[in-house]
């Protein structure tokens, strides 16, 4: 049976990619953010995961409003990034884990998750930036299974539904006949808002309470409906549902291995959180 190592949650804003491209890691603006990553690198070197199941949200690269899935799962041999409208440099392609993709699809559909399956799929900065932060040399040591959750168009799936998705993914991984070591990745957040007169909104108290809850009361955030999450975390802060799904996949109990929180990077309160499975 596959072994679950832990979960990593991280912000994914496009500016991270630009900062890495320009080698700004030691720049005073960026240093407090990048200083959050060496403990993650040590963890990866120590644990050596084989596969990462990645909960993230597409920002209008692979999906448009003509076919907008609530939950989409990749089942491709390879995933590539692409120009998202800003001419950003592409990163090396990611290898998929088709065995795990189809195992998850079979298990999740049987549990009444109405997935959209993708045998071909472009992945955007929400995939590339966290992966690049994990592996700065772009030598991806993990195969991936991307799971995209809609944050583009309301109604979004509720935090409660995203918890249930993550929980089912975790159970499916535990039943996977493989000797692979699996980690979960949740990318997005924390509090930020890009649009409207409220642009620039952040909520440090809420973010810290949310991060704390993942260890001691992990379903805490499922009490909030989507509108409440927007109110507390901003229109893009709702991306915290990716963190929630990744935490849910760990199952009962998780221990904090590392965390970092910093305001601001770009328009965002950034968070990094690494949890070991129990």
């Amino acid at each position, binding site marked *: 049976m596959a072994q679950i190592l832990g979960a990593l949650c991280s912000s994914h804003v496009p500016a991270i990619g630009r900062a890495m491209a320009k080698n700004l890691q030691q720049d005073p603006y960026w240093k407090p953010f990048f200083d959050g990553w060496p403990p993650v690198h040590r963890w990866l070197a120590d644990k050596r995961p084989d596969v990462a199941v990645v909960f993230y949200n597409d920002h*209008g690269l692979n999906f448009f*409003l003509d076919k907008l899935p609530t939950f989409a799962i990749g089942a491709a041999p390879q995933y590539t990034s692409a120009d998202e409208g800003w*001419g950003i440099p592409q990163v090396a392609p990611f290898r998929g884990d088709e065995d795990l993709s189809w195992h998850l699809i079979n298990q999740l559909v049987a549990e009444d998750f109405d997935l959209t399956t993708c045998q071909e799929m472009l992945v955007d900065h929400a995939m590339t930036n966290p992966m690049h932060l994990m592996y700065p040399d772009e030598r991806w040591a993990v195969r991936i299974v991307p799971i995209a959750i809609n944050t583009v168009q*309301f109604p979004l799936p509720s935090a409660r539904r995203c918890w249930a998705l993550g929980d089912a993914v975790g159970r499916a991984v535990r039943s996977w006949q493989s000797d692979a070591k699996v980690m979960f990745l949740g990318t997005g957040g924390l509090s930020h808002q890009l649009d409207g007169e409220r*642009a*620039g909104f952040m909520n*440090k108290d809420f973010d810290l309470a949310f991060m704390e809850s993942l260890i001691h009361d992990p379903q805490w955030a499922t009490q909030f409906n989507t509108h409440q999450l927007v109110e507390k975390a901003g*229109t893009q802060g709702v991306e915290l549902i990716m963190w929630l799904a990744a935490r849910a996949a760990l199952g009962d109990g998780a221990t904090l291995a590392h965390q970092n929180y910093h305001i*601001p990077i770009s*328009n965002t309160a950034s968070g990094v959180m690494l949890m070991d499975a129990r």
Partner: protein
Amino acid sequence: MSFDIPGTTLFDGAQARKGYALNKMCFSFNEAANRAAFLADEDAYCAAYGLNDRQRAAIQARNVLDLIAAGGNVYYLAKFAGIFGLDVQDIGAQQTGMSKDAFKAMLAAHAK
């Protein structure tokens, strides 16, 4: 559906219906060739996507709040902003009526 979070327009069904043509055009800006075609003949490009007058005016004015009011979704609008090299702090400053420096200072102040 109106919402009681000040300064916030949720992109729901009502917005999605209103903004489809605009968002479809902005989605096309994922490709460099389309960005170039827009710059080469803005009127023809907008006409090809069937923008209404309000959308056309908001595009012409490069005004983000107007684009949102016309049904634009920030994820697609960001690709439009990208044509002009504008980042999220530029559009944040524009929407809040601040200078970019003032907007950045406001962001940093959230750290306290």
